[in-house]
């Protein structure tokens, strides 16, 4: 780019000398035409700069992956991804609270019955129970032991489900990392854009500042590149059943 602007400068100087020579010879028409050419050259350079800025902006938008119509893929939609994070975190929070709310009365009921039995059990130890009371306590104890087995299992299952519900952290984390990545690239592009616009201001417009535009396609584009969760994407299978069907069609 150095040599290009140098060549431009040399050319400019040569043309300026010609204008002076034309004027010295009284050839005003030629001199005016050359001056108009200068202006055209300046305009061309401006148009080129504007073109570059437009392309840079376009690249930035593509990197932001907001331009759905162009890409024809809603999976690239940042908003859809973020909405998915909201849904995911909301449903995980609700699921966790539902499970905890279901588990608490189970624990309370076990506690209440155990407390009641405890006082009768102490009476039994002090031989304060009649034969009839003892038989009733025996029955209640059998019942309670059975109840404890099923209810403690239920409590365990609830805790297990609560653990599982925390998977949202991984999924939303993947989406947010992806979006942070997009923002970083967009910011990078916009900074380049600013540099371009800045160079337009500072120069007389004849210098061709060649600013590297970032190639939107440079990044690996294989179709199986890891993308993280993609809500509402056409190529994405919607459930484990669909995955299983596909795998069994492949001979699994």
């Amino acid at each position, binding site marked *: 780019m150095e040599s290009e602007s140098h060549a431009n400068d040399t050319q400019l100087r040569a043309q300026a000398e010609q204008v002076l020579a034309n004027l010295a010879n009284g050839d005003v028409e030629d001199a005016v035409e050359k001056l108009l050419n200068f202006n055209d050259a300046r305009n061309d350079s401006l148009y080129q700069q504007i073109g570059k800025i437009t392309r840079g902006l376009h690249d930035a938008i593509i990197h932001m992956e907001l331009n759905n119509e162009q890409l024809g893929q809603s999976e690239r939609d940042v908003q859809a991804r973020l909405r998915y994070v909201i849904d995911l975190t909301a449903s995980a929070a609700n699921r966790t609270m539902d499970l905890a709310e279901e588990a608490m009365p189970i624990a309370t009921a076990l506690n209440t019955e155990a407390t009641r039995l405890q006082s009768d059990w102490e009476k039994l130890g002090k031989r304060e129970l009649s034969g009839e009371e003892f038989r009733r306590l025996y029955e209640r104890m059998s019942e309670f032991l059975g109840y404890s087995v099923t209810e403690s299992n239920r409590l365990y299952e609830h805790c297990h489900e609560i*653990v599982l519900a925390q*998977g949202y952290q991984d*999924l939303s984390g*993947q989406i947010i990392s992806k979006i942070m990545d997009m923002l970083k690239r967009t910011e990078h592009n916009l900074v380049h854009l600013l540099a371009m616009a800045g160079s337009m201001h500072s120069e007389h417009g004849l210098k061709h500042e060649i600013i590297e535009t970032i190639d939107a396609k440079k990044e690996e584009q294989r179709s199986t590149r*890891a993308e993280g969760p993609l809500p509402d994407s056409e190529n994405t*299978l*919607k*459930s484990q059943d669909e*995955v299983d069907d*596909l795998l069994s069609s492949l001979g699994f």
Partner: protein
Amino acid sequence: MKILIVDDFSTMRRIIKNLLRDLGYTNTQEADDGKTALPLLQSGGFDFLVTDWNMPGMTGIDLLKAVRADEKLRKLPVLMVTAEAKRDQIVEAAQAGVNGYVVKPFTAAALKEKIEKIFERIEANAG
């Protein structure tokens, strides 16, 4: 039964570890991407690999391919547990020789079923 769990999110590793413990598999180790997992696997002793796909450093699919290309590891059963659910990706994983594929978010039942199926097949082949 020694199992290696590979995922870049520690919460997910914890969940999978929890589920495996519930299924009676308590001997687990963890790695946060393919790059750290591969030397662990090569050092030996693992009977089963559970891996995510989307990880920085080395992805799960690359780890799977590296495992299948390694003379000592190539028969190691591999279960992929991932949010990547594109048709092409599942086909690629199948072609690379994955033994099971579970999409996130998953249920305990789905994971259990896949793991049991893999172990059944291993036992059938061994017997």
